[in-house]
């Protein structure tokens, strides 16, 4: 059985979080988005590029993203994904909950070390 790629290596929702964060700075088309995530995460995330798409569809459905026609860097007409108001709100919530989680984890780790 093929393991669902978005759950590989990371906690659930990580891919969504990265997409939201990346798009919050600037609307992008699919390829640019994938490149950007790879760059930022320093190839740390071995994601299958295609797995971006089911995630994008889920987020479109949830109303966090919307898409519109735009131009790529090479002036090709492409679909650009951008964050909606709801998406921004969701991102903030996610970030704070992830931060809480990490804080909790590091406290436990620190405790274990001493």
């Amino acid at each position, binding site marked *: 059985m093929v393991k669902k790629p978005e759950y590989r290596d990371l906690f659930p929702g990580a891919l969504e979080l990265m997409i939201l964060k990346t798009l919050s700075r600037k609307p992008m*088309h*699919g390829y640019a988005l994938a490149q950007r995530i790879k760059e930022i995460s320093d190839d740390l995330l071995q994601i299958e590029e*295609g797995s971006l*798409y*089911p995630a*994008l569809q*889920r987020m479109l*459905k949830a109303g966090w993203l919307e*898409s519109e026609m735009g131009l790529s860097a090479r002036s*090709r007409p492409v679909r650009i994904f951008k964050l909606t108001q709801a998406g921004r709100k969701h991102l903030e919530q996610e970030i704070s909950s992830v931060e809480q989680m990490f804080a909790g984890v590091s406290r436990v780790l620190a405790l274990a070390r001493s």
Partner: protein
Amino acid sequence: MLKEMLTRHRRFAELSESIREYLEEKITDLMERGMTREEAERTARRDFGNVARIEEQSREVWQWRKVESLWADTKYALRRLSKSPGFTMVALLTLALGIGANTGIFTLLDAVLLKSLPVPNPEQLFILKQSDHPADKSRFPYPFFDRVSRQLPNRLSIAAMSWPDDFYVSTAKEHPRLTEGQLVSGNYFQVFETYPVLGRLLAPTDDEKLGGSPVAVISYAYWQRQFGADPAVIGRELDVNRVTVTIVGVAPKGFFGARTGTQPAFWIPLSMQSFVGYHDHYSDFGAQPLKPWIPQANLNWLLLVVRVKSPDAVPQMLTVLNQEYRSNLESLILSDADVRAGMLRVHLTLEPGQRGFANLREQFEQPLVLLMAMAAIVLLIACANIANLLLARAAARQHALAVQLSIGAGRTRLIQQMLAECLSLSIGGGVLGIVVAYGCTTVLPRWASSGHTTIPLNLAPDGRILAFGVVVAVGTGVLCGLAPALQSASVDPVSVLKTGVQPIQGNNPSGRWSVRKILVVAQVALSLLLLVGAGMFLQTLENYSRLDPGFDRDHLLNVQIDTHLVDYKTSDFPPLYQRLTDRMEAISGVLSASITSCSLVAGCLDSSDVVIRSGGGRTIARGNAQVNSVSPNYFATTGIQLFRGREFATTDDASAPKVAIVNQTFVQRYVGNQNPIGSEFSYADSGPSRYRIVGVVSDARVNDIREIAPPIIYFPIAQNVGNIDGLEVRTAADPHWVAAQARQAIIDVDPRIPIVNVSTLNEEVNDNLSQPRLIARLTSIFGVLALTLACLGLYGVMSYTMQRRTSEIGVRLAMGSTRRAVLWLVIRETLLLSGLGAVVGLAMALGGMRMATSFLFGLSPDDPAIITTATGLLLLASAAAGFVPAWRAAHIEPVQALRSE
């Protein structure tokens, strides 16, 4: 949601676009970094992953996933099926027969064995039984019922009813017709918690005075049939056995009381028993059956139904009932000490009455289970057949499947696809099967009923039948589809696409044991089981109809009349007997006629307890014997053989010493090795009169041709004057010719005497055999069906195998093999398959028939002749099935076969 559905099409298009844009961007990017277009495309696709699957996964985000993919698969399956109408027709027809027969037989099983009575809270009903009673486990006297119903805290907790019986009923002066009716206690309907559709039901006050309540409640069906549902029916009169009763109410629709398989048209109060001349179905200890039954504490005739509101109350209820039963016994005067001791051992029990009285269950439970098992076997064979056909289709579709797999279809999805195809077939077959099931439920009860009336059964489809049908249809679909589905999922796309064919595991044409062959072997085995069954049941029927019943059944006519309904005095009878006999014998073509109080094979079962003494007066045995009073020429007329002693003579009249003739079973059981002639017996429970045995006759099967005769005592009717059951008439030619004249003879003697039935003994015997005939017929139909399916299966597998081996056979022929050798090669393989199936089938048949021994007569469950015939038939049929592919193989043109490679 709806908007989502509408825009979805556009959304999916955009998704595909977006993915394409992605790849384009990436390719351009890679080419800018110095790759060739080809390299860039390959890298882009590899990094992206499986485009088709990712697209599907992305789409599924928007879908109601399982249902939609199932819907898509079903549409695809239907399209594929419509492309091969021949296959679809055969499969649908097979499944319709299989599923329909199963559902139809289950409907009968449900009606007879499972359905609750159509009354409120049927689970609260119990049937009162007398355990360890020497003679009668289910019937009670009225005084006991009366006492109990006064003792119990709630008067509505116990109801009494007679056995349903036929009465001569007429409305508005038309000719009386035999109509089923029942005597019931006043609280009967209240205990069943039913309410009238019209008027009132009976009330406890209707029990109060003997003959004081000439009223009747009619059934809903009778109201519809006889009175056209006239609302003014209340107050109209009904003539029941020449007594006028007033209709006071109509019972609710579907209500039939507590005996499944009966449908009384009316109910009248118990207090009317002697007035309407109800005189059958009782047992007694020295009672006076000609006087009213209500006051008699030693005459058992009532079935008792108890309603217990909560299960906790059952033990307490039983205690009260048993106490009352004891005191009822105390009030009985039982002259015979043994009988008395036997009666004191009796204790009462309550049996669950939710499904009513068990008579129909006992009669039909085993045959129905047998038929159900056979229908299930046919369905299994049909499943195997369709699985086989589907496997062949799947093999033909290998290439398509390999393509689907290689572009990213999941294997579970392929299994789902195959199952969708089978389920479409089986559900379609199930829907068509409704027609077959309906046919079964109309034809089978008619075949199973004896006589000219059909057993009334409530065959309305209920939830259980619906659930059964759905489960069978879906189960069939899964069963058919599992092997093909698993096989398609195991296709290896690489090798199929590379070579065009693939030696799929389990479908290897050169391999000995593919799944398909195993399925065919199973089919053959199961159909042999059915064939052996059919042979044995046919032989059983044949044995029965050839059986010598101990009387000469050809040229014998039963003329059944009912003298109870005419108010004869005892002194009227002897001249009546004489006139009847004389008038009957005056008909040309009649050789002799004899009076009997118990017609042959017509189901009258009068019996008495007797004490047998040797010639010296010493008691040698006591026991029960059936009794029949006949005129002197009875044995000559019926052809029952006299073994010892003498027949009755005209001198054995009322003034002569009392004599009797007994049958051999009576002698064997009660007299033993002594000379029976001259022994004496008396009734266990009445008077001192003794009867002297003057003759012994053969054990004729006088009750039912399938039953070995019980001990029987014959009395001369002149010494035992009373009501009679009719005449046995010996004719010179076909008795049908004198039937009309025989009826006229009765009318000539006394037009008041109702004629119950005039039929030949051969017809009566045929009625006895309705059940074995039903089983033989159905098993034969199932057997032929199974054999046909198995041959189709064999044909299919062999054709397929030969097609796959075309080139091999071409080589053989090119190398000098003769066509005859090729023909034999194929037939041998077919016979190998069916031979193996036959071996398995024989093992099953030997085991299976042993379980069905109770249905066999005159042969053992391993009868070699039938087993050999069935096996021979099977092998012959399978050789025939293998012949067509063999012929085709033998006529392959080697050059063409090799060229096509």
